[in-house]
């Protein structure tokens, strides 16, 4: 079924040999119908232009849809047929096309079965509020079940799509998140989930396209690595033949090696594994990381400009091409549309401290921003500049990892930056130290065992350009763009400290 719902596509004449008596009867009727249909076709072809007509242009209609629900009212049976994000009302009525047995059969089809339907598309006088296609309905002439679903479903899709507030008000059920995640295959069928993951696919696509247009090369980095790059506490260990190895916490090390290998600008899309025992609304143990690294010519702001421009292109692409999906998600999870500025707003850490200070938060010069402070800062920036996306530049050196390049003009600060969406951090990036000597000094200062990072330091010994970059989490970006509240809604089969299946 197409979105427009009118111009039927190819005829899908899947002639399944029906086992029941009804099937035989229907075959008898076929001959009659075929004759009548031929007449009708001729008439319709002549009357296509007229908009007063009840019948639409095409009369044949081949669909492979799922039965969402049905309701039998005496001589009629209403079904809701669904395909991905859209659903349409269908009607089986006793008449010259359908017999009483056919109506009974339609009423007994279990929900979520896959059916093949031939029907006439008709305009309706009253809008059908409960479906996405509100101005037409299908008058079924033939219906076949292709794959039958079990009668008892672990969760009802109408409940899964119902907004939380509405559920409480009317006393109807909503499905809680754990049930949804346990029966992910059914939950993903909801119109909301379909919309979310189509949007996520769009984000990935726009990311790739924008960067490729800017001259970036896509790389794939290994995920089984020999040594934990940043603090050793947060990596998963895997047994590797006679020894053990780790799952990569981030592709950072290999991105930088690619820059030293003269690839100039690279990006990679791949899984990231973090063994953090954080049970929050925004942490997963496995997520998709979109990482960027590039060498620059004069100033590390070139890197910031590149990254923010990519983000802005992604936002614009979503705003212009995925409005349907955004509206679908908003029906179940209402939220404010996402606002941004072009070029992206860049504030300095000192300005952020001043804004927080004005709002009554006391913070030291070299303190890191706590999560509540980040959220407050997000609200203050939204008040003043009306943007949900901004960059905070020049973080204090003391709170950044050892490979961050210090600010040449002020040793207290560093050439590092964070990016925020709706007050939550989505990217942590910096200019990297590209000098092996300086890197060793910084590592010693942070009391890191030099033996463990020997390979890393060695990669800078044979000529390395100044470079910087950052990485974002696909799920978190989608969650924040749509204004959702839990990252598990944007991860197809989420992994967290308590969930390993499906």
């Amino acid at each position, binding site marked *: 079924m197409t979105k427009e719902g009118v111009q039927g596509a190819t005829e899908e004449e899947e002639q399944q040999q029906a086992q029941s008596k009804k099937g035989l009867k229907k075959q008898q009727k076929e001959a009659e119908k075929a004759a009548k249909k031929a007449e009708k076709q001729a008439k319709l072809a002549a009357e296509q232009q007229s908009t007063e007509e009840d019948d639409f242009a095409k009369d044949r209609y081949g669909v492979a849809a799922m039965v969402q629900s049905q309701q039998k009212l005496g001589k009629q049976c209403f079904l809701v047929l669904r395909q991905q994000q859209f659903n349409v009302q269908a009607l089986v009525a006793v008449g010259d096309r359908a017999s009483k047995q056919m109506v009974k059969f339609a009423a007994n089809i279990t929900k979520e079965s896959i059916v093949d339907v031939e029907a006439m598309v008709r305009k309706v006088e009253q809008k059908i509020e409960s479906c996405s296609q509100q101005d037409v309905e299908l008058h079924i002439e033939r219906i076949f079940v292709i794959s039958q679903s079990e009668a008892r479903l672990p969760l009802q899709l109408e409940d899964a799509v119902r907004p939380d507030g509405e559920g409480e008000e009317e006393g109807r059920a909503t499905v809680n998140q754990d049930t949804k995640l346990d029966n992910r295959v059914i939950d993903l069928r909801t119109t909301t989930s379909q919309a979310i993951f189509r949007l996520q696919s769009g984000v990935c696509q726009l990311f790739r396209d924008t960067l490729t247009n800017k001259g970036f090369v896509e790389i794939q980095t290994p995920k089984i690595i020999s040594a934990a790059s940043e603090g050793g506490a947060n990596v998963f260990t895997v047994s590797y033949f006679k020894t053990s190895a780790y799952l990569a916490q981030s592709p950072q090390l290999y991105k930088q090696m690619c820059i030293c290998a003269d690839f100039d600008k690279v990006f990679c899309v791949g899984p990231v594994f973090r063994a953090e025992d954080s049970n929050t609304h925004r942490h997963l143990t496995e997520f998709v990381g979109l990482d960027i690294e590039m060498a620059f010519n004069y*100033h590390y702001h070139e890197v910031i400009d590149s990254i923010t421009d990519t983000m802005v292109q992604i936002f614009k692409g979503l705003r212009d091409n995925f409005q349907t999906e955004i509206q679908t998600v908003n029906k179940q999870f209402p939220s404010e549309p996402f606002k941004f*500025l072009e070029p992206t707003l860049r504030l*300095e850490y000192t*300005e952020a401290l001043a804004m927080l*200070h*004005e709002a009554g938060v006391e913070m030291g010069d070299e303190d890191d921003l706590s999560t509540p402070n980040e959220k407050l800062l997000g609200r203050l920036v939204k*008040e003043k*500049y009306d943007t949900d996306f901004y960059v905070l530049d020049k973080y204090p050196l003391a709170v950044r990892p050892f490979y961050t390049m210090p600010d040449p003009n002020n040793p207290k600060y560093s050439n590092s930056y964070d990016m925020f969406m709706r007050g939550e951090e989505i990217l942590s990036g910096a200019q990297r130290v590209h000098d092996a000597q300086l890197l060793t000094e910084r590592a010693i200062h942070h009391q890191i065992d030099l033996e463990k990072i020997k390979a890393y330091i060695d990669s800078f010994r044979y000529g390395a350009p100044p470079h910087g970059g950052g990485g974002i989490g696909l799920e978190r970006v989608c969650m924040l763009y749509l204004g959702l509240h839990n990252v598990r809604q944007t991860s197809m089969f989420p992994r967290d400290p308590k969930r390993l299946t499906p």
Partner: protein
Amino acid sequence: MPMYQVKPICGAHAETDLPTCMYKLPNIHAQKGNSCTPEHALQNGEVDPAVKALEARQDEIMRKLHELKAAVEGLAKTVTTPDADLDLTVSSSLSESASSTTFKGVTDLDTVLGKDLGALRDIVINANPAQPPLSLLVLHSLLCQRYRVLSTVHVHSSVNGVPPQLLSCLGPRHADSYARHMFQLGFTLIWKDVPKLQMKFSVQNMCPIEGEANVARFLFKLLAPYPSDPALTTMVDSWVDTAFFQLAEGSTKERSTVLRALNSALGRNPWLAGQEFSLADIACYCCVLQSGSASAAPANVQRWIKSCENLGHFSPAKQLLQ
């Protein structure tokens, strides 16, 4: 010109017992019949040569200023109208000194904007690209002459795109723009789909300011305080309001009434608020230009328009309208 006199802390004629083993220097400040010794006496009775030199320099500068003032007054007398018939290149050299004395009085940023918290003080202006605020662009260029201003232009996501001249209306990007903390003031212009022009500065302490007239008043206060005479202040304010309400948004009849009023006011004085260029002139000029009635204006108004343009501050506004 006597400098601020401080009474000597110790007696001016104190007898000091100079040690004989030191190298004796003759007294540099040998009195040549000058009676200002007591003022420059230091603690040990000797006079600081630097002070004397400073005084001499100051005298020199004051003398030059007096000469300049005399020259300007002379020119003003020969030319009955303010710079109207002078060529821009000639008057620009005069306008340098004219603009520096245009806005008398100094404003302290801290008193107007609040305590300096050690970070860039950013003024955010949300404007609709359909109605670019010309007077604010003029005030922006005046601010740039006075302070170190970091100017940025953004396009909000509520607007699909703006013509390129709106993106470059604040001038080229400053070379130091990567270091925001090096600037005294930030001027951030956001092209957004807003019904009315809006300015935000300090979210906690100030409510947003709406309307081009009010924002212009705010920005002007950063340049110079309003004249202390309340009658003059009221007149300036009334001209600003006339400009934005009747000239810019009024019907043709209202506009011609305003032009007539301008004509009669300008017949009496070179500028709208008397002898000095003020916010009233900026506001009225921009609105006259935007309403397109510049060419059809009466004689005094035309002359005044020429004088405004000769001052050189209005070039960004003119460029935007082209």
